């Protein structure tokens, strides 16, 4: 974008700070991919060429990030004799896009969603999955995308504080019923829970998409005084600030499994979605290594370990039999509630993701 001499100076400075460990990667990337100097990714590229590390981008600290580190990245890099590092700054689709547009994506595998795989894939921002390396017969057909592979499953559900209610909330309608279930609710700051409001308002699962945003806004606003919109719903539940939280099961897993006598999960009408690996176009370690990483994660033992650590369901059906007694209740395909789970419309969400975030921030929370 710019060729000012200062650009180079700044780039070199920032890259050096980053290499020396004085600038954390998160800040560096914010600077690097950001408004300050858009195309300044030469620095980490050079650092990477020297270190030859394979970079896995995660939502650091999250349950999936912890599972990916322990059960995929670590054994995989040992098997491949490569070093790897985690970038925990969160590979949001906007950031993948800026990185690819800037020319040198430093992420080799991103923990993403099927929406991002579809939306960015369509824009040519992602490497196509090489199914000569990735064995698609390992996973269910709905895990196989042109630009991504779903490696685990979770549902949008509600979790509640058992002590707050004599009878447990058992539907989305109950979550939005503040008369029968008085207490505070929390939703994720950026939405991804539109379905909850519509199902609560009586929309039939088969009529859910395209989402009736106006109707959902009305439903959300009817309990707005009882709602907070936060980054970390499970923490709010654990701290006692709220009595019902709406989030993905993988978010609730740690909190609920730590205190099962205190919290319950309401699976009825859960909206099922997947965690999906994507590979930014032109990734520095080369697409082939990324493909082998993805294939490694689909192995049934690895899958069972991920599920146990992150409270998710497997993509590889053979892993189901290997799930521990503690992990099995977190599989959206558990027979106890598999029937009532509604698959998220990936195509619709992929096409409308930014619009939906904007509407949620603006009309539901704001």
């Amino acid at each position: 974008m710019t060729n000012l001499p200062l650009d180079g100076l700044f780039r070199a400075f920032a890259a050096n700070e980053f290499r020396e460990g004085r600038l954390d990667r998160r800040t560096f990337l914010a600077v690097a991919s950001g408004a300050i100097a858009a195309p300044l990714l030469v620095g980490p590229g050079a650092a990477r060429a020297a270190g030859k590390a394979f970079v896995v981008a995660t939502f650091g600290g999250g349950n999936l990030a912890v599972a990916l580190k322990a059960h995929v990245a670590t054994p995989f890099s040992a098997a491949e004799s490569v070093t790897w590092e985690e970038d925990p700054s969160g590979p949001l689709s906007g950031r993948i896009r800026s990185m690819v547009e800037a020319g040198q994506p430093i992420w080799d595998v991103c923990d993403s969603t099927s929406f991002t795989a579809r939306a960015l894939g369509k824009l040519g921002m992602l490497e196509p999955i090489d199914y000569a390396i990735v064995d698609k017969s390992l996973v269910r057909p709905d895990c196989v995308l042109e630009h991504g592979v779903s490696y685990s499953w979770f549902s949008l559900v509600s979790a509640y504080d058992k002590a707050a209610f004599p009878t447990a909330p058992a539907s989305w309608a109950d979550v939005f019923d503040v008369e029968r279930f008085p207490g505070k609710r929390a939703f994720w700051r950026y939405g991804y829970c539109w379905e909850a409001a519509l199902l609560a308002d009586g929309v039939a699962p088969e009529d859910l998409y395209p989402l009736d945003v106006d109707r959902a806004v009305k439903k959300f606003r009817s309990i707005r005084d009882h709602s907070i919109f936060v980054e970390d719903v499970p923490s709010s539940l654990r701290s006692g600030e709220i009595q019902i939280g709406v989030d993905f099961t993988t978010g609730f897993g740690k909190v609920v499994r730590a205190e099962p006598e205190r919290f319950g999960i309401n699976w009825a009408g859960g909206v099922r979605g997947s965690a999906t690996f994507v590979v930014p176009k032109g990734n520095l370690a080369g697409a082939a290594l990324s493909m082998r990483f993805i294939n490694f994660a689909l192995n049934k033992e690895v899958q069972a370990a991920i599920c146990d650590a992150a409270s998710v369901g497997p993509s590889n059906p053979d892993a189901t039999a290997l799930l521990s007694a503690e992990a099995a209740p977190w599989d959206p395909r558990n027979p106890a509630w598999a029937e009532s789970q509604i698959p998220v419309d990936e195509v619709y969400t992929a096409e409308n993701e930014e619009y939906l975030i904007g509407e949620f921030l603006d009309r539901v929370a704001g």
Partner: protein
Amino acid sequence: MAASPMARADRHYLLMAVAPVLFLAVFFLWPLGEILRLSFTDPQPGLGNYERLLTSSSLQRVVWTTAWVSVVTTAVSLVLSYVIAYALAGLAGLRFEVMLALLLLPLWSSVVVQAFGWLLILRSDGLVNFLLLDLGVISSPLTLVRNELGTLIGMVAFMLPVGATVLLPNLRGIDPQLTLAAKSLGATPWQAFRDVFLPESIPGIVGTGAVLFILAAGFFGIPAILGGGKVMMIAEYVSVQVLQMARWGTAAMLTTILVAAFLLILISLSRVIDLRRVLVGA
């Protein structure tokens, strides 16, 4: 002809100023220029980003929320910090130093830590509600946080030491003889304050107000945490635009607007009062 000693001294000062000026040019002015450029070029060249300010109701609301929260925060913290600074200005010696240290103590903790502290104190099962319920003042917990009220409480609390610190040198610079003279001429303490001390402190009030407003309008952490997602100010909106949506243009436009507003405030202020007097003290 040899330069006068005065001019030589000036040159030394100039040389000393070169490093910070260069630093600011490279690490502040240049990136700021990049932001300005981006606001006119991303995603397409033109005034599109600025046009959205006129057409997008969400952008308008973010700007409005920022202005409203900043004005209220500034007004309340100005009054409270005046009281604190006035009390401090009358102290001397060890008592002054101890009080000043206590005033500055909160600045040692980060904004995020302060915000979470307020969350614990103000939420429905927090300290304040617990006490009020226990004393029978209220029958059900008040909603004190995760809304605009909570945001304002957190922001005012953060601003108090800042405001008092900026005001203090101004108030201490006012000659105490003036108030004494007024009293000797028969003024009550209140009259002496209202008619003599207060007018003398107006430049300090105006300048501190500007500093507080500029700080408040750029706030991120406190509204993001204590606002419960319901109080979206410009700084947070910019971060969402960049990180979630990759809309650099909109983010750059909002940043430019904010910086322009600050410059406007400072320029118009400098026409009314002597800024040096505000920032350095009388």
